């Protein structure tokens, strides 16, 4: 017996922050995304789970405007209402990404300049946004690193000299430095030691609680999603197969694939 169709939201005040609809992307013969739709409300944490190749990381790259789908519409409720973000040119995208979207990648090499200082990595974001005071750059970089619980004694060490957990904190500081409307997390703790993973998740959770940052977090680790997310989307073969409140999806999964996933991983 399948569950009843859910109604549209009626109680949430305001509008969703993120609305993605009809997103499809092929790479040659591979259909990486098929008609994907997402809605994220301000202050919410949306989890995306699925196995490798399910399209979850491709989807996150789309949300970060690193790639353009074959079809689809992507809107963020920002003051300047930029319309369909996929329709923006390279320059406008870059500006928008720098200001409104932060991202933490699984691989810190994708997000960091490994040979520059850690504070400089954060400062670069602020520089892109036009900050030209050295003292303010320094103060804001320090503040963002501190909020990411990065040890300030290592402020100017280059990320290549840091541990994996510390590198993720630098990425996080860089991502939140401009107080983005949307924070994207792509397997932010995968590959870290379990204890380090717990600390990084804890930092994320704390930031979310203190700043009510809207987040989309991709992970194949259901534990990470359960810790972090309010709602979860389950992806398989480039499609969303199930969507719901985290406790509901994990305790009462509807789709055969989700059941398999939940039973395999819990």
């Amino acid at each position, binding site marked *: 017996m399948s569950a009843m169709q859910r109604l549209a939201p009626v109680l949430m005040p305001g509008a969703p922050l993120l609305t993605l609809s009809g997103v499809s992307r092929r790479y040659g013969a591979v259909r990486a995304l098929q008609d994907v739709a997402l809605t994220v409300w301000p202050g919410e944490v949306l989890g995306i789970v699925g196995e490798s190749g399910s399209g979850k990381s491709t989807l996150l790259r789309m949300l970060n405007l690193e790639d353009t789908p074959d079809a689809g519409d992507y809107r963020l409720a920002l003051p300047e209402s930029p319309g369909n973000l996929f329709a923006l040119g390279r320059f406008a995208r*870059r500006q928008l990404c720098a200001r409104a979207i932060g991202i933490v990648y699984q691989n810190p090499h994708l997000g960091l300049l490994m040979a*520059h200082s850690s504070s400089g990595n954060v400062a670069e974001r602020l520089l892109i946004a036009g900050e*030209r005071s050295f003292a303010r750059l320094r103060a804001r970089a320090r503040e963002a690193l501190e909020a990411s619980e990065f040890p300030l004694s290592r402020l*100017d060490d280059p990320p290549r000299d840091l541990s994996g957990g510390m590198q993720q904190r630098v990425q996080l500081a860089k991502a939140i430095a401009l107080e983005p409307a949307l924070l994207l997390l792509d397997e932010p703790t995968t590959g870290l030691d379990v204890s380090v993973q717990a600390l990084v998740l804890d930092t994320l959770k704390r930031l979310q609680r203190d700043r009510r940052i809207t987040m989309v977090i991709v992970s194949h680790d259901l534990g990470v999603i359960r810790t972090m997310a309010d709602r979860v989307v389950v992806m398989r073969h480039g499609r969303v197969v199930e969507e719901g409140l985290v406790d509901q999806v994990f305790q009462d999964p509807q789709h055969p694939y989700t059941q398999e996933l939940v039973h395999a991983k819990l």
Partner: protein
Amino acid sequence: MSLHDLTRPWAAFSYGFLDAEAKREMRRKLIKAIAVPGCQMPYASREVPIARGWGTGGLQVTLTLVNPTSVIKVIDQGADDSVNAASIRRFLTRVSGARETWDTTEASLIQSRHRVPEERLRADQVLVLQVPNPEPLRPVQPNMSIARQMHADADYARLWLVLYEQIVRAGRIMQGAAYPSMVNGRHVMTPSPIPRWDVPKLNMAQHLTILSAGREKRLYAVPPFTSVVPLAFSDVPYKVEDHAALTCARSGLSGYFMNEIPQAAGGSAYETSDSNLGIKAIRRAGGETVEIAPTWYQGGEFRP
């Protein structure tokens, strides 16, 4: 009909060494470069009879601009009498019939390596700077295709980042020569390896500056009355070299950019880097009537 009827007698057909096609390309690129100040224009950099890296870029521009009424000055690190400056100057006059000079005020066309003369240039003068590396983004972005895209996007955050890290690591900005500067509020250029002392001379200047890199096949320009602003944080002002208080051991001049001459006994002596300015000062001190144009720096202070 004989071959003699079909051809003209031999005559030199290429004034100023470069052939007409080469000069036409240079003129087109120069016009473009002037139209988009600070923006690098690629060009086909011909062979000239000096080695790449010894001023071929500047030489091609000078050869394109020279005419029989030109008065040519060539300086190398401020000196007119260095081997390179002398060879280039002699070559230029030989292929153009133009007159040569050491005097900045007299010259109409000045080719220079690493210095801008201390005497203020006028609207009827053109300064040609030899550039080893025209790409200010090269240290932060080795991929030149991406660097071009960054110029297109005015994405210079990484240059600022370099300055940020210099202050963090050394407490001050360490960039000595080739200080990245924003031209006309749009493109960041490297002003060739001139000292920081010389960068303000390009800002809103009366003269035209052309910067050309022969090996890298790029040229760019600062037209007259165009802003050239060295990148600097709002709270860490741009500083030129601390030479205001130094005195030239030979000419007695002070308040100009100096060359440091280490002494055998230890310590240093200083000499005016702009050698012709020093010569003029010595001659004036010897009682000759010598015209020295107003200089950009007075009493060691830049006077715009």
